[in-house]
């Protein structure tokens, strides 16, 4: 999901930068000051998550954790993820710097979008099934991020055999792993420190 330097066309890069900038600005405005320590730690966790490799069959894939960031921070997920991506690009050349805008949109937009839609299900309520909601958050965030990435590549004009490339990029096992990790993290936090959840 970290698109490298020199892959995307100029219009896509600019569009991504504009949307990304807007997302970061809105996110920064909406974060409350007492949420900032949590935001910093989540950004660091997101930064490190890419180095956790999960061997699946012949390949290695890495965790994204954008679903977890979305549940815990809501709109704040955008600046948090962008800062993490910025440092990954600077220190490890993980994703190009010009592609930072696009990469932020690809990874941060789905959790923010899901947060807006699913927020009411996160509210403290006897009927809420936190495990299933957070599993869905993790699963769908990575799924939508992959789709956004494919859209960005298609818009650049990459000759894609669309169906097979979607199947290839959509690493199904990692979706379940991300969902499970998000679910376990959120249910644990809800038990131990429910105030940490953004609702």
């Amino acid at each position: 999901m970290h698109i490298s330097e020199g892959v995307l066309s100029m219009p896509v890069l600019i569009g991504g930068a504009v949307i990304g900038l807007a997302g970061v600005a809105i996110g920064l405005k909406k974060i409350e000051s007492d949420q900032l320590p949590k935001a910093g730690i989540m950004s660091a966790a997101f930064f490190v998550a890419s180095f956790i490799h999960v061997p699946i069959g012949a390949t290695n894939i890495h965790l994204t954790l954008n679903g977890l960031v979305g549940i815990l921070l809501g709109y704040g997920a955008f600046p948090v993820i962008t800062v993490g991506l910025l440092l990954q690009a600077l220190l490890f050349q993980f994703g190009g710097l010009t592609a930072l805008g696009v990469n932020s949109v690809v990874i941060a937009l789905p959790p923010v979008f899901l947060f807006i839609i699913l927020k009411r299900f996160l509210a403290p309520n006897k009927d809420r099934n936190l495990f299933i909601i957070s599993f869905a958050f993790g699963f769908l965030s990575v799924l939508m991020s992959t789709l956004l990435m494919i859209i960005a590549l298609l818009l650049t004009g990459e000759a894609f055999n669309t169906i097979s490339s979607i199947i290839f990029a959509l690493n199904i096992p990692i979706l379940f792993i991300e969902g499970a990790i998000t679910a376990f993290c959120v249910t644990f936090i809800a038990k131990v420190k429910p105030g940490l959840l953004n609702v």
Partner: protein
Amino acid sequence: MQKKTISSAIILAITLIFSASLYAHRVNVFAWVEGSKIFIESNFAGGKPVKSGTVLIKNASDQIVFEGVTNENGEAEYQFNQPSDYLITVKAGSGHQGDWKINKHEITGDSEDQMEEVKTDETAEITVSIDNKNLSALLDQKLKSIHGQLKSLRQEIQSNKIRDIISGIGFILGIFGVIAILKSRTKRS
């Protein structure tokens, strides 16, 4: 509140000054064998040569076989009498030094090469066939030490990954700290 800010700013400035000087005084030493001489080059991290640095060379029995000084370009050379493991140390003053190990086989590989060259001078016709046969073997021997050095260089580059992760986390926490400061300012005003 003002006292705390001033004293922490002073501590920060002192730390930065010290860290800059530590970096400048890391001494890199590079040495290689050509014929019967060891060539030595040394510089500070950042590229500046170690001028008039003390050069100490110890052999495998830990005896000092050479004491010299680097020139303006940080270079020195030593003509050795016998093949052995050599430890080359360059001291740049203030307790900063670097060293480099030369393995015995780097030297013995070369001396065999020298004997081959002497032989080929004698008969012109045989020269070509000897060169062709032994060329790759000689190259392999010379390149062996370079391969070893490349390997350890690559490993060093890889190990920096942990350093980068730690610094990335530091940067991230710092950025959010700055955001927190800015936010509290706008709140107050």
